[in-house]
């Protein structure tokens, strides 16, 4: 599972029928610069730190084996202090 931060919602009106009317969110994985899109069955706000599953587990996590998702949010992390963690890892690597 990946730790990601939610950036905002993504609106895509023209979509394949398999995606249904599920909410899509733009997320940024911790420690990487690229943005990804995840299906959100949980209900997250922008700024939330979340855990997301990939590969075929993402399909099951979205509700059914036939749902076409490769990244699905499975939980919102209650407490996550990114600045504290970043300084901690800098200290251990030094």
């Amino acid at each position: 599972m990946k730790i990601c931060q939610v950036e905002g919602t993504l609106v895509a009106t023209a979509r394949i029928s398999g995606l249904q009317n599920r909410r899509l969110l733009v997320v940024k994985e911790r420690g990487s610069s690229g943005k990804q899109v995840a299906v959100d069955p949980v209900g997250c706000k922008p700024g939330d730190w979340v855990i997301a599953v990939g590969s075929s587990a993402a399909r099951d996590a979205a509700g059914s084996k036939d749902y076409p998702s490769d990244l699905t949010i499975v939980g919102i992390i209650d407490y996550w202090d990114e600045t504290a963690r970043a300084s901690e890892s800098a200290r251990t690597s030094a």
Partner: protein
Amino acid sequence: MQIFRVVSELVTTKRNFWLSAKPLRVVEDCFGNLEVALDPIGAKSGDFVVTIGLSAARVAAGNPKITTDLTIGGIIDHWDEDSWR
């Protein structure tokens, strides 16, 4: 899922049986890397799209037997270069 921009269409007359007659698109990511994606919805050049990868790409194509690892899932309504890069 990832955000790509459609660059152009791609025509391959001689192809694997399980790719059937679905259209293909050349797409680029935010770093300019090119990939080929199956397009079941009809995206135009310049459109920003959400793509589905891994095994879910085959489900998204409508038939799990279709041999693809990247399928366009939707056209994004509002997106610009600044939020992309």
